[in-house]
């Protein structure tokens, strides 16, 4: 089939298929609401060659979550071809043809589940129509199997390759009208399919953003101020220009306006771009670069200062009320027992294995970019705005990246590459060094949280008061630093208050895998564990009881009834699903029969985010030097009715758990406005010897399938710290672990 857009199909399912994320994650929510329904056609996604080889376009960016498998698998299943006959091709950025092309918020599964299958089924329908016309038989007498249309009555059959030309000329059926398979007939969905790029990866083929090469290409690197928004006063530019291989030295004035609230895309950071024949030459030149910086007001920021201000804010009256019901103060003062605690978590960085970068070429007034962005349409808009060019003059190729974890939802590196390309009129590859990547991350912001909870004489929760001290201008929390009205356990305690206070922050922050949730889960599930302990109750039984007594409706609406297979747009917790994963993980980990002994313990936690439910149990030991070993982890997940690619799904869950463990030991600090960490020696990642055995179990429910990138991560943090408490009696209320005298074994 060739691309044929004659048949414009109305995709109400896609248009209305709200990708339900919590509303406070504004960049992601924005990304999920297409301004107009995409007119998806099977012709845009499926190409069948005369020899029967099927090429399926993967519309979303790939940075390791398996999107190049998952979305094409949905199409291939309903097209009714064999996966071995499928070749996957990365689509260019063109949202008018492919619909939304982004990877974030664990959204590709809920966003693609229905439309991608319908695209495949429409393609199958075209093949049937073409065959029925060829044979002069009614279409409803034809069936398909493995890329062939069959007519049982006459014993005839034709391959899709033979029918492709005829099918391409037919009008595509309305997507809403096509019949989808019964899940029991799936031959691809639910069956593990190895990554389409795995062979290229293990043989070292050029595949990633960093691997791009163009004829005559130069390499670029940017020296930026060590303080956010710092500007160049002067530099030894002429001296640098004379160094071996150096072709251009460009001063970037940048476009950052420093204020108490730093927006999602704060503008280009100032600096000096060095362009040379090789990347190493740019690095050599940087060692000789002498810049006199105007560091600006952000140089007054420090982690110490943030901590002092947060402590002040925590003592004072809250800046605003996010959610309140019941008389919390009265409930607390009449409680049989109260527990009060302050939790602190630090800034952390994404640190993708492939540092940020992009390749771009500016030629004859047109820009061509090879982008690892996971939100490339926003990148194009930002590039166009920054460079003063038209979006229609930009072509974007979507290139596999060495990890995103939310970092590549921001497009700063893309703008930089485009800006340099436009200045030099030569193809250029920009690559950040690891040090650049850590210093100029879009950090997960830290916070300080004051909590007070009440228990009645029976040990039931009476009230929950939560004072969240974050960053922002009082009205807007910094990106990744807001908290929603329905954040668990809102709705369950009889009286509840969530207050927020903010202090200014002049620093790029962003969305790090399970934004917000990656820290709020740790706070809430740790404090619940504290309450359960104070009540003398088992943490599992305590939480199941809390979940069974919902007191208030969610502010963002109730979920439709069980069995509703469409995403509703309401991202709200369904207590039965939350309880379901807790019960499953308890069963698998032998929670009820766990042995309590000094130095060894099990901890449990669960969370709901990005439409998915995960409960995790960690078994840890702590030695006399407070060295922590995580021996085993059990995870139970509920992401709906279908695990699309089981082995990839298991890997994603294990990876989320490893990352969450990593978060426990990581910290970004500022002194005189400068990020103090620079590379893996002072910003550690989990390594192989620290890897526990991780068992992953699925609780399948009747809900429509949802994504896995994010919900697997949050519960492991409190599962481990609750286990440390069980092992030692020491409660971790400040991260990283090292600030409590603990460290990984």
């Amino acid at each position: 089939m060739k691309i044929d857009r004659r048949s414009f199909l109305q995709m109400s399912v896609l248009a209305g298929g709200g990708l339900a994320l919590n509303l406070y994650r504004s960049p992601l929510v924005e990304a999920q609401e297409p301004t107009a329904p995409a007119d998806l056609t099977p012709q845009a996604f499926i190409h069948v060659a005369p020899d029967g080889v099927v090429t399926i376009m993967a519309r979303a960016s790939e940075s390791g979550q398996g999107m190049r498998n998952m979305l094409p698998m949905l199409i291939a299943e309903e097209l009714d071809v064999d996966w071995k006959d499928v070749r996957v091709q990365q689509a260019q950025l063109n949202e008018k043809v492919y619909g939304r092309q982004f990877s974030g918020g664990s959204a590709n599964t809920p966003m693609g589940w229905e439309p991608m299958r319908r695209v495949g089924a429409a393609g199958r329908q075209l093949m049937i129509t073409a065959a029925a016309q060829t044979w002069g038989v009614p279409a409803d007498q034809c069936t398909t199997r493995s890329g062939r249309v069959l007519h049982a009555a006459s014993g005839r059959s034709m391959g899709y390759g033979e029918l492709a030309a005829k099918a391409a000329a037919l009008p595509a059926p309305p997507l809403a009208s096509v019949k989808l398979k019964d899940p029991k007939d799936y031959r691809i969905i639910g069956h593990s399919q190895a990554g389409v790029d795995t062979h290229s990866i293990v043989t070292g083929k050029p595949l990633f953003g960093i691997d791009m090469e163009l004829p005559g290409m130069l390499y670029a690197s940017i020296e930026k101020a060590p303080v956010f928004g710092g500007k160049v006063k002067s530099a030894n530019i002429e001296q640098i220009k004379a160094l071996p291989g150096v072709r251009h030295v460009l001063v970037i004035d940048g476009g950052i306006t420093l204020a108490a609230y730093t927006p999602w895309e704060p503008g280009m950071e100032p600096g000096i771009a060095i362009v040379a024949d090789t990347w190493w030459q740019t690095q050599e030149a940087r060692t000789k670069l002498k810049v006199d910086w105007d560091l600006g007001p952000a140089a007054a920021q420090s982690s110490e200062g943030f901590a002092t201000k947060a402590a002040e804010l925590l003592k004072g009256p809250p800046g605003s009320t996010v959610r309140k019901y019941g008389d919390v103060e009265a409930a607390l003062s009449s409680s049989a027992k109260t527990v009060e605690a302050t939790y602190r978590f630090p800034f952390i960085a994404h640190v993708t294995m492939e540092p940020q970068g992009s390749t771009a070429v500016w030629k004859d007034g047109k820009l061509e970019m090879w982008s690892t962005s996971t939100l490339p349409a926003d990148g194009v808009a930002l590039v166009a705005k920054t460079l003063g060019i038209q979006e229609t003059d930009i072509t974007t190729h979507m290139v596999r990246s060495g990890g995103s974890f939310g970092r590549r939802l921001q497009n700063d590196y893309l703008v930089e590459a485009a800006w340099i390309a436009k200045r030099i009129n030569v193809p250029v590859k920009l690559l950040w060094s690891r040090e650049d990547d850590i210093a100029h991350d879009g950090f997960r912001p830290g916070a300080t949280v004051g909590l007070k909870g009440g228990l009645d004489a029976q040990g039931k929760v009476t009230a929950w008061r939560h004072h969240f001290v974050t960053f922002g201008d009082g009205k807007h929390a910094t990106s990744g630093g807001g908290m929603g009205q329905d954040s668990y356990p809102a709705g369950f305690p009889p009286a509840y208050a969530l207050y927020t206070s903010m202090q200014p922050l002049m620093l790029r922050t962003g969305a790090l895998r399970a934004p917000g949730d990656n820290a709020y889960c740790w706070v809430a599930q740790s404090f619940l564990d504290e309450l359960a302990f104070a009540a003398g109750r088992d943490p599992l039984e305590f939480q199941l009881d809390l979940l069974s007594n919902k007191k208030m409706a969610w502010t963002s609406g109730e979920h439709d009834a069980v069995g509703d297979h469409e995403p509703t747009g309401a991202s709200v917790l369904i207590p039965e699903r939350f309880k379901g994963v807790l019960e499953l993980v308890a069963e698998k980990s032998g929670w009820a029969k766990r042995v309590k002994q000094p130095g060894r313990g099990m901890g449990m936690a669960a969370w709901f985010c990005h439409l998915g439910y995960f409960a995790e149990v960690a078994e840890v030991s702590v030695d006399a030097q407070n060295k922590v070993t995580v021996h085993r982890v059990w995870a139970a997940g509920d992401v709906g009715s279908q695990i699309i690619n089981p082995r990839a799904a298991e890997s994603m869950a294990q990876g989320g758990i490893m990352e969450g463990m990593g978060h426990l030991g990581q910290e970004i600090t500022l002194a005189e406005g400068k990020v103090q960490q620079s590379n893996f020696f002072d910003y550690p990642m989990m390594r192989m010897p620290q890897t526990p055995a991780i068992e992953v179990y699925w609780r399948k429910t009747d809900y429509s399938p949802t994504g896995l990138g994010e919900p697997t991560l949050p519960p492991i943090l409190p599962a481990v710290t609750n286990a440390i408490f069980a092992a030692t009696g020491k409660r971790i209320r400040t991260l990283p672990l090292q600030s409590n005298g603990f460290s990984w074994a």
Partner: protein
Amino acid sequence: MSIQLKVNNVTAAVDAPPETPLLWVLRDLLHLRGAKYGCGIGFCGACTVLVGGQAVRSCMTAVGGVGTDHVTTIEGLSPDGLHPLQVAWEEMDVPQCGYCQAGQIMSAAALLQLTPHPSDKEIDAAMEGNLCRCGTYTRIREAIHQAAKMGAATSTNGAAIPTSGAAIPTK
């Protein structure tokens, strides 16, 4: 300055200062982009290649110091991608983002040469220097065991890899 290198059993002449890290010579001058940049200080292992059969961090190895030792990169591990480690990696579907995996495989290749049937502990010790940000360690360990069963040691050696072919064009 022209330096002679033997990479994947092909002799190449590269024009680079001797202190240039081998990684950037491989990637940007010889266009072998399998070895990856991750940290530049030898802390992540993404740039691992074999020099004289030993796993080294090419980001910390000056090209001028390589001398006559054979350099084997992921591209030269097997001409057809059928080295037991590569086969095992595919069977286990190890990668997520995949960026670190060339370095992981090269470290594993060096391990299996010395220890054809490593225990979990021996694997952990040999692979500790290779970071996987996606957290695929469980599968890497499984794949190394699997490759060991297939007899990876017999075919993992820079010198044993077929020797032929024209010089690699330099930039």
